[in-house]
């Protein structure tokens, strides 16, 4: 494992040499790829993602294809995609804009006013993704980054993206679909594939915004563990009353509908969610 990590950094450095980029440091690592900070011509900061050759599969292609199709200010932009051969193995590498404003996780707790501002932009990003018939399936604070202005949120990491026009990659027998359970919607947790659509992302965005604004998961009743929270979501219990009251008192009442256990009770179309959020914002 260690050997392969070193290899990816070495490959990243070779790519930098070839493309006249300046290698700075490794900034992230996922199951199938590593991300490096590099500097491009005219000192533009860039992110270079190198995919592990063993992990180079349909999933990577889906991620790259989805990101190439997305053209929106609140979605991470791919600048180039290339394939490199190294010691007889092929590696896919993508260059993206470097998001220097950090993640939503790193921001810690945010105010209701910040939630409204960040929320409307992320909803616009989700609407764009939904318009392409895509579902991100991994919306969470770690996957929301900020541009250098620290106020423009950007949806990143399309590693679990699903194109609803294609057949699913998750087998029906799997008890749970892919995603980060703590932020996932019931239909995702239960692998109810026929119910997955943009409203699945709407739910995760609802949890994400609730978590960073109110400091906890909206389904956490007193004294229960994270695992029990996920169980409450997957069994379609109701959102906790403490959450409904607090969200409403902060002028964030739309969050409760975004978090409905059944997708039919969430906002049906992105424009309806956008309108509700705009009205809330005043």
């Amino acid at each position, binding site marked *: 494992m260690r050997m392969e990590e070193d290899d990816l950094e070495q490959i990243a450095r070779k790519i930098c040499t070839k493309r006249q980029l300046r290698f700075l440091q490794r900034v992230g690592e996922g199951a199938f790829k590593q991300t490096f900070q590099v500097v491009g011509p005219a000192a533009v900061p860039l992110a270079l993602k190198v995919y592990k050759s063993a992990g180079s599969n349909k999933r990577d292609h889906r991620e790259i294809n989805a990101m190439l199709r997305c053209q929106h200010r609140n979605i991470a932009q791919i600048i180039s995609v290339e394939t490199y051969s190294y010691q007889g193995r092929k590696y896919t590498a993508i260059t993206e804009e470097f998001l220097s404003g950090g993640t939503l996780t790193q921001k810690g707790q945010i105010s209701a006013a910040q939630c409204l501002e960040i929320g409307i932009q992320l909803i616009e990003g989700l609407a764009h993704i939904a318009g392409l018939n895509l579902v991100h399936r991994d919306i969470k604070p770690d996957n929301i980054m900020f541009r250098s202005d620290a106020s423009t949120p950007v949806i990143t990491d399309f590693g679990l993206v699903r194109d609803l026009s294609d057949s699913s990659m998750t087998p029906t027998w799997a008890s749970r679909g892919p995603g980060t359970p703590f932020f996932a919607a019931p239909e995702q947790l239960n692998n109810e594939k*026929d119910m997955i659509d943009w409203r699945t992302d709407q739910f995760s965005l609802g949890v994400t915004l609730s978590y960073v604004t109110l400091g906890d998961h909206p389904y956490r009743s007193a004294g229960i563990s994270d695992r029990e929270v996920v169980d409450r979501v997957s069994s379609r219990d109701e959102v906790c009353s403490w959450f409904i009251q607090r969200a409403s008192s902060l002028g964030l009442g739309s969050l409760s509908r975004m978090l409905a256990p059944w*997708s*039919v009770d969430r906002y*049906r179309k992105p424009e309806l969610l956008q309108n509700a959020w705009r009205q809330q914002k005043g």
Partner: protein
Amino acid sequence: MSVFHQMGHHSNNLIDLPEMSSYAGAIFSPINCTEAEATEQIAEVRSSKKTFEIIFDPQLYVPSSERGKLKKWTYFPKDVDTADPTSKAWWTDLNKKLAAACQRLKVDAVCSPLTIPKVFDDEYYLNCVRVGTELSKSLKDRKIGVLQTVLVSLAELTAERRVPEIASIVSKTDADRVYLVFVGSTAPRRELSDVDELAGAMRLINTFERNDMRVLVGFCSSDILLWKAAGASSCASGKFFNLRRFTRQRFEEPSEGGGQLPYWFEENLLAFLRQGDLLRVQRVGLLSDASQRNPFGKEILLKLKTDPWLANSWRQFLYWFADVEGRLTRGESAAETLMKNADANWAKLDKEKIYMEERENNGTWIRSWLNTLREYEKR
């Protein structure tokens, strides 16, 4: 809030009557006419009724059955016996031909095509949505609306989770209107009466309506009371739907049955009455104000013993259907009050030892409907 006339055999002349002006539109069917005849009929309706909404139901519920002139229509698939109904390509081709036919017909909207499945599982509903969304997209720029057709088995609605499950899948559609058809096993001339099934059906309607989807319940009868209480935007009825329920068997029988008898619909009993029944009920003074106001009812009563009244019986029911919908929408009548009143009147008939010609026409379903309202409100 509106009513639609579900066109049947020789029923195009009914919608032209001035007394039927409260009908917001009609659902045209390919069963009783060719494409050319339908185009002509639609043009005729258009010339006299400018705001009338014309919806086309392609009626592919059991495509292999003998259904009048359906097979002569250009969209009717030539390969129904060998086709794979789960094939996307098959539906895409059908949608393309249907969209073209709708353009020629000059309809305002079309119900997405569907077949009655053997099993009403999630995959079936997802396919309904795929077909509906595809048709919706292809007609978007042609100013023809699409209603997402959904056939729902009443029996499966008894499971509490099934309602939100179905609604969650169906609400994925691009269409904003749902053409909802309940499939059951109720025998001809009998009322729907399973409390759990009906409460589930009401919850399904309400779930769609409260989530920005307008529901048009197809093939209604006096059960319109339940659907309106659940918040349905629109209901549609044919002239004699109560006699031929929406069951699979319906499509396996000849579509033009002989031996039609005239029936009077009586609001005071929420029941269809044969001539002898009507006379007995009239004698004990139990005809409702609604019946006595009904212009076709008046005509029937004037010539009841001398003239045949089959055609007027259709009109009498259709007039009541639109009239009660209007009263329920305006809050002038309440479903529960009408049911309680009918229940009390059946008790009076019992006391007077007045029995209907059909043994099962005894008003027992009204108690089930009242219980349905309780069950629905409970959840």
